[in-house]
Each structure stands twice: as C-alpha cells, then as structure tokens.
C-alpha cells in the first residue's frame, strides 16, 4: 500500500513537472526536444506492446510510423487536394495503420524468434523503398522530395503553431497512450500476450487463441505508431522517406530495451535517454553519434536487463543467469 501511494505521488509530481516545463524552459529549442521525447515515447509504447508484452521481436516497426505519417499527409495536404479536419483524419490514419499491422503480421504468424525479426526488417525496408520510389508511374508518395505543406492540426477552431502548443498536444497524447498501455497490460488480452511471450505452446494449451492474440498485438502496436506518425507529419508539416530509415526502428527498439523491457516507466525513460542524449552531446557536434554508440554498448554491458527492471521479469532473468553459471 505504501509503495502504491509513493508511486502515485511520484507520477503526479512528474505530470506536474511535465506540464510546467514550458514555463521554466530557457528557450524554444528545449521545448522542441521535450515535444520529440513525448512523440517518441508514444511510439515506443506501441512497440512495447509488440516486443515487451507479446514478445514478438519487430525490427521494422518504423514502417508503421511511416505509413501513418504518409496516410495523414495524403488526407490533409495539397498533394491530393484533400484537407480533412485533424480530428477526422486521425481515426482514419489509426485505422489504416492498424490494417497494415494485420496485413504485415499475418504472414509472420508461423515464424518464431529471429525469423520474425528478419521478416519485419524486410517489410521495414520495403516500406521505405516504396515510399522512395512510388512517384512513378503514378505519383503516390512524391518520391524523394516527400510531401510538403501538410495542414497543421486545428483544434477548437484555431490552428496550432509553435513548439509549446505541440508539446502540450503530444504530452496529452502520451498520457492517453500510457493509460491505454496500462489498461492493455492488465486486461485479458494483456495476460494472453504475456503467456505467449513466456511459452507459446503452454499458452495455446491453456486455450489462448495465439493467432488472434498475435494479430491483435500487431494491430494495436501499429495503431500507436500510426497515431504518432500523424502527429509527426502535422508537426513537421512535411514528410520524407528519410524520416523512416531502419536506424529509426533501431532507435525505438533501443528505447524499449534500455529502459527495461515490458515496463511502461522504463519505456518513457528509454525515450528520454535516446532522444535527449544526442542533444546533450550536441556540444561535441561530430562526436555525438560516436558517444551514443559507445553509451549503448556500455549500458548493455552494465545493465543488460535495462535501467528499470519490471519485477515480473527480474526473477526469471536471475534464474537464467544462475543456470548459465552452472557447469554444463
């Protein structure tokens, strides 16, 4: 009870800090970075559903982020001459991305472990290449020049401008995503995912329809990414294929892993670390990616289970380690 109360107090303190941030932030740049953290944390929460909850290693996740961005760009820019209102385009994008999630998830259902990872990698690369090349023979994605002049979100009658308003929008979305992820984790389907993650055969023996559960994980994970993608497109006011390279998938995966897989607080922490670290090292200019790579290695060596280890995962990991130490 004591621990529960402390967690609530801590959560509230963090929420108040997050809401107050723009008042104390020294400049617009810091608010921009904070907005990006919120956006990527939402994205990472979606990947956490697939990788952390259901144990399906997806290393092409950024494909859904890209599909969401482009769908929003199609629906709200001069590219096709469509200008759907933000609150109408958003659900359409989320629905569309979830459909892609099922479409890409379906052929991978029989595959386990690393083969699944490789197929998702293949889909990620194909998505990027299609975004890059589908300007001929029929211009769909506008190729390498991307889609520009995307409509900003209009909420309650006025268009959003400036990093501060986007920051609040992304913060609210992140809050909703957190609540959704938390509810999912402790729902019937959440337990089914975790059963599949620990032992697929046993899960099936207990009467879980693993096919449906896995497809649900893919669809729900993809819809988080679609949501985040639409937000990215409306914030940047433009989308380019280069926004959705394989390295982005790895970045998001790193957010999920370094915080402590399966733990929601860990995912947020991971997003803060991965987005903010290169910014902190910006003074080092050219060296920042070098340092980033080194940090990833060092972090994995000294905290292989992630910075925050969820309690349910700590025990089996320790057991595995003990087994590994036994002569044999």
């Amino acid at each position, binding site marked *: 009870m004591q621990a529960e109360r402390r967690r609530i107090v801590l959560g509230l303190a963090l929420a108040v800090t997050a809401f107050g941030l723009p008042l104390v932030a020294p400049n617009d740049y810091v608010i921009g970075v904070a907005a990006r953290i919120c956006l990527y944390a939402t994205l990472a929460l979606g990947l956490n559903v697939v990788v952390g909850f259901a144990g399906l290693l997806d290393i092409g996740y950024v494909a859904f982020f890209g599909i969401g961005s482009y769908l929003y760009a199609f629906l709200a820019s001069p590219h096709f001459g469509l200008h759907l209102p933000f609150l109408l385009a958003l659900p359409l994008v989320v629905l569309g991305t979830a459909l892609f999630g099922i479409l890409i998830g379906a052929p991978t259902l029989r595959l386990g472990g*690393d083969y699944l990872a490789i197929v998702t990698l293949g889909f990620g690369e194909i998505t990027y290449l299609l975004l890059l090349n589908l300007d001929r023979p029929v211009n769909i994605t506008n190729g390498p020049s991307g889609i520009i002049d995307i409509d900003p979100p209009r909420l309650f009658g006025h268009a959003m401008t400036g990093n501060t308003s986007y920051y609040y929008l992304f913060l609210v979305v992140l809050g909703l995503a957190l609540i959704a992820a938390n509810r999912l984790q402790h729902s019937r389907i959440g337990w089914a995912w975790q059963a599949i993650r620990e032992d697929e055969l046993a899960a099936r023996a207990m009467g879980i329809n693993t096919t449906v559960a896995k497809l649900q994980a893919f669809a729900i994970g993809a819809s988080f990414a679609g949501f985040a993608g639409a937000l990215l497109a409306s914030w940047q006011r433009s989308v380019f294929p280069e926004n959705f390279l394989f390295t982005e998938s790895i970045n998001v995966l790193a957010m999920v892993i*370094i915080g402590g897989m399966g733990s929601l607080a860990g995912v947020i922490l991971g997003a803060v670390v991965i987005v903010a670290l290169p910014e902190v090292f910006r003074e080092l200019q050219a060296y920042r990616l070098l340092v980033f790579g080194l940090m990833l290695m060092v972090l994995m060596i000294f905290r292989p289970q992630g910075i925050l280890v969820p309690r349910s995962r700590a025990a089996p990991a320790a057991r595995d380690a003990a087994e590994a130490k036994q002569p044999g």
Partner: protein
Amino acid sequence: MDALGILPQQLVFGLALGAIYGLIALGYTMVYGILLMINFAHGELFMIGAYVGWGVLIWLINANFGGLHPAWVVPLMLLMAMSVSGILGMSLERFAYRPLYTRGATRLGPLISAVGASIFLQNAVMLTQGARMKVYMTGLLFPRSWYIQVAGVRISALVLVMVGVALLLMWLLNLLVQRTTLGRCMRAVAEDREVAAVMGVNVRRIIAITFLLGSALGGAAGVLVGLYYTQIDFFMGYSAGLKAFTAAVLGGIGNLKGAMLGGIVLGLIESLAVTFLNPAYRDVVAFVVLILVLVFRPTGLLGETVPQANKV
C-alpha cells in the same frame, strides 16, 4: 539493346556481386550458428576492410610499389584488410558481446550492443577518414583492356579475380571447418555449447576464433567491393550488411554452404530485377524474395533446423 540482349552480361555482374554477398554472409551465419546472435556490426567490419585495402593501395602507389611486382598488390591488400577486420571483430566479441552472453542476459542485449558498436565504428571511420568517399585506383591494377570474351559476354579480369578470390576463401573455410580439429570444435560448439564444453572444448576460444574468421572474410569482401565499385564511404557497410544478412537467411542461417548459395542466388535475382524491372526496385525484389522464402520455407534453402528461441 533490349532486355534479353543485356541479360547474359547482367548475369555475370550478378554472379560476381553474389559471390561477395556470400563472402560477407559467411560472417553472419558463423556467428549466428554459434551464438544465435545477429552481429549487426559485421557490415562495419566489411567497410573497415575496404578502407584498410584502400590505405594499402595508396601507400603502395605512393611508394611506386616499392619494387614489388604489381601482382602482389591485391594479395597484400587482402591480407592487411583481413588482419585488421579479423582482429577488430575478435575485440568486439571480447569487449562488447562476451560480457553479455556469459551472464545469460536476454537475447536482445547483444543485439543492441551490436547496434551500438555499428554506430560507433561508422562514426569513428567518418571522423578519422572524413565523410567524403575514397577512390580505389582499380584502373592501375586491372586495365580495362584485360578481359575475356565468352559467347559474346565480356568478363573482365577484375570480375574473374573477384569471383576467384571469393571462391578460394570459401573453399579454404569449408576445408577448415570440415577437415581440421579446430573445425570439429566449431561444429561441436554450434551443435551444443554445453555438451562441447563437457567434452573439453574451450568454448570461449572457439567463439573468439569464429569471430576472427568471419570478420576476416568480411574484410576481404570489403577490398573486393572497393576494387569493383572503385568508390567507398563510411556508410557502405549498412546496405551491404543488410544484403549479406538476407543472403545468409535465404540460404539457411547457420549453414555455411547455405550462405554461399544464398549470396549467389540473391546476386542473380538482383541482376534479373535490374534487367526486367525498374532498377530502383532491385532491393524491393530482394526483400520480397526473402520474405517469401521465410514464409514458405522458414529454414531457408539449405537449412535444417529452425532456431526455437522464441523468448526475446
């Protein structure tokens, strides 16, 4: 010329490129066979091999070949590149991966560590060598006039050397793995690490040697690609690594002959895609084939067992 007219020529290019994919794929497949780990930094070792070969070439040209016969230049480049990449690969295993797998961490830990290593190596090369591409003076070693004509297809001396070196290295590796005690130890560790340890195999040493050999082959491939494309840059390991990895999976990951076969099949498929489709879709075709193979024959062309490690 129409598509069918250039097809034989394209197939020759595809074969040459495929042999290189196979060479790089061996590094992925050897490490995967033993540790069930995707060494994402392998593409970077290939890239560093290309830079070392370039350095040796420039140094020799500046020294007017130092009295050496020009025929020694390529072997020297290969030797240096293989040594540097091999030792670097072994150090990666020692410092970035071993601390993880000996502690029984989750299988994702080494993957992220490898990604970190990949970013680190790419940027280290960019910072020390500059972001601009380097040019291989291939023309000095293999004049354009050196080629043979087979049934109307022109095969340059360079392509012959490339395929020859790749096949020779694959043959040597196969010999080592199949015929020597060291090779038997490697196969034993890949089969079952714990039982191999009980039988007296020094598992850590075998893993280190596997990294050494696989990385050295990657370094050699770097030199060959440098000679072939004549331009190298610090980012070249990314797409080559992705392709080679695809080749390894296509052939059946963990299987040495599969890696070679997968490389050549991938090279040929790409040359067909370039000939009959839009060249921009070359990579799309490669990945679609990969997905189809995995969905309908998840073990790859020559694979026998599916890794049953579902836990992330």
